[in-house]
């Protein structure tokens, strides 16, 4: 019966062979085995929640990027590339690289030196209980909600592509994550994420390699796209962004640079605890910084396994894909099927199993990221300060283990809720994005400006979040408001998001600065290790150049500039 479920139904887009099934089952066996094996190394709170802070730069860095590389994102961005072209690649380059390098060089020292367990934990040290509570509760609720939404979306995709039963997909994959996270905590999650990183890359790299051979390289691919879609520009990143109407996304370069590259990107990459937690578990500050730079390098490379398959789909598929709203018919394929269709096009028995394992691995790494971040924030930032202050360390570890299981069950509950009320997806995604953005303003002002006051930290964060809500509701109630929020009535969803994020950040910074000027700052001795100018950083002069984070960050920055110029 299990095999029948895995091998899929008659209406599935892909059909698996027994060898594919063996590959998938072996993967599940190994991740569970790893969880049980690592349980013996996670007995204290520091070991369970922070992986003992013993990770090398490579492990921390690969885990950092793997926790972000969910399969929904992979399929979603391949689909968006089919729709908007290479423009979507901004999410990986300007929408990630500057922010990750900034995290490594500027912010990581403060996160690491203060030895906090979480980003809300940093806000507690810097601003006090108000800002910490607001961020911890919002983060915990949204993380678990997003986890459930991702779980449901993934199950739907698995049903369409492989014919797997929705309930089967939800329960098997999420309980596997629950078991290995419950057993080995962050250590288990990180080790599995490194494994998943390899599977995702090796599984997905088949498509661009074979695809470029089929089209005769980049030039051949571009020629085919131009033949299939005459008059449309899918292959330039910046050239078409001089106006709102010159590109399929309806976005101006100012939105890409300030909304996407600054507000959304810095908000997500520098304050979302899901990713930051991975590098905070490094064995020392230099490893944390180097790990982040390693993550930046691989993030920069992700378009080759996500964006390129979307472009190749434009070039080689013998039919045109359609929006989700027009899907559902037997021979009609939607944008979201771009990546699975390319897998089916090039991958025979064995390779197809590897590709499907890559998608499952991507889903599980994202979910484990959500669960471990939720567990840490719940235990250290909600349970410990508000429910049970002075318990033994073993009590909090026990709480963390049960909380992992509870987090997964709440996620499953959310998945079933979404199954019945699908509009929740739209609301939750909007709220999640706009909560993260003002967090960046609050954290960075706290790190770089010692005058920022505890009251300003709280009110700035609240004002940023409320601005996000207000603008979103305004456009929902009056679509004409789009021309004020996004400067153009032609702005599509993605463009609208980046401008809304920009406004949210501006309000956050203005309120934080204004309140700071009228309220009392913390004395300097309480800000040591938390703020620039009052934190002693270990000199790196005795390390050779090739071992310093700044050297590799510069190399990644040069690569980032070259790629943008190359695909201008």
């Amino acid at each position, binding site marked *: 019966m299990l095999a029948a479920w895995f091998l899929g139904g008659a209406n599935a887009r892909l059909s698996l062979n027994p060898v594919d099934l063996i590959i998938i089952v072996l993967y599940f066996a*190994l991740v569970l085995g790893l969880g049980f094996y690592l349980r013996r190394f996670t007995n204290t709170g520091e070991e369970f929640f922070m992986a003992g802070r013993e990770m090398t730069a490579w492990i921390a860095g690969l885990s950092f990027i793997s926790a972000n590389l969910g399969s929904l994102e992979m399929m979603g961005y391949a689909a968006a590339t089919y729709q908007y072209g290479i423009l979507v690649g901004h999410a990986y380059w300007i929408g990630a690289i500057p922010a990750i390098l900034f995290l490594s060089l500027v912010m990581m020292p403060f996160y690491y030196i203060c030895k906090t367990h979480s980003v809300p934990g940093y806000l507690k040290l810097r601003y006090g209980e108000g800002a910490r509570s607001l961020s911890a509760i919002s983060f915990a609720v949204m993380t678990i909600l997003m986890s459930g939404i991702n779980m449901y979306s993934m199950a739907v995709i698995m049903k369409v592509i492989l014919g797997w039963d929705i309930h089967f997909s939800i329960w098997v994959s999420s309980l596997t994550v629950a078991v290995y996270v419950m057993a080995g905590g962050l250590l288990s999650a990180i080790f599995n994420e490194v494994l998943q990183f390899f599977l995702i890359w090796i599984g997905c790299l088949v498509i661009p390699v074979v695809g470029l051979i089929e089209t005769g390289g980049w030039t051949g691919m571009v020629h085919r796209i131009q033949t299939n879609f005459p008059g449309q520009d899918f292959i330039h990143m910046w050239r078409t962004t001089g106006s709102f109407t010159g590109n399929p996304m309806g976005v101006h370069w100012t939105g890409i640079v300030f909304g996407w590259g600054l507000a959304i990107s810095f908000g997500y990459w520098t304050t979302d605890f899901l990713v930051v937690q991975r590098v905070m578990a490094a064995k020392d500050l230099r490893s944390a910084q180097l790990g982040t730079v390693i993550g930046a390098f691989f993030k920069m490379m992700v378009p080759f396994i996500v964006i390129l398959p979307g472009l190749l789909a434009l070039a080689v598929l013998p039919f045109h894909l359609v929006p989700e709203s027009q899907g559902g018919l037997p021979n009609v394929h939607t944008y979201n099927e771009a990546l699975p269709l390319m897998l089916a096009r090039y991958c025979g028995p064995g390779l197809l199993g590897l590709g499907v394992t890559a998608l499952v691995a991507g889903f599980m790494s994202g979910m484990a990221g959500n669960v471990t971040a939720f567990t840490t924030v719940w235990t250290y930032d909600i349970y410990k300060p508000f429910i049970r202050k002075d318990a033994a360390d073993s009590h909090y570890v026990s709480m963390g283990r049960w909380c992992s299981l509870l987090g997964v069950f709440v996620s499953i509950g959310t998945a079933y809720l979404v199954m019945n009320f699908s509009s929740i997806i739209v609301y939750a995604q909007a709220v999640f994005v706009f909560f993260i953005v003002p967090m960046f303003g609050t954290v960075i002002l706290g790190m770089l400006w010692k005058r920022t006051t505890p009251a300003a930290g709280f009110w700035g964060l609240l004002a940023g979040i409320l601005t996000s809500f207000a603008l979103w509701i305004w456009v929902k109630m009056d679509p004409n408001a789009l021309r004020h929020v996004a400067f153009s009535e032609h702005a599509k969803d993605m463009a609208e998001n980046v401008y809304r994020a920009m406004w949210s950040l501006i309000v956050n910074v203005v309120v934080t600065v204004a309140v700071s000027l009228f309220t009392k700052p913390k004395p300097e001795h309480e800000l040591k290790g938390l703020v620039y100018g009052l934190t002693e950083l270990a000199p790196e002069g005795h390390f050779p150049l090739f071992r310093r984070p700044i050297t590799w960050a510069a190399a990644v920055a040069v690569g980032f500039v070259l790629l943008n110029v190359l695909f201008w």
Partner: protein
Amino acid sequence: MGKHSIPIWFFIGSLLTIYGVLILGSGIYGLFVPASNPVAMSHLHIGIWWGAGMFLLGLVYVIRYRPNRKDM
């Protein structure tokens, strides 16, 4: 994480080696028994190349990071 633990790279190497054997074997089988519905570019026999590459990469990791018996 104690110094006596098995490195993650060893687990990764083991899985890649096994996957390499399975994919390589499947590719070689396809040489002799062609699929009724061949994938695009099937003449490249990408499964053989990919499987062999994964097998070799996995083997390098397994050998390089095999647990030291003296420490176990």
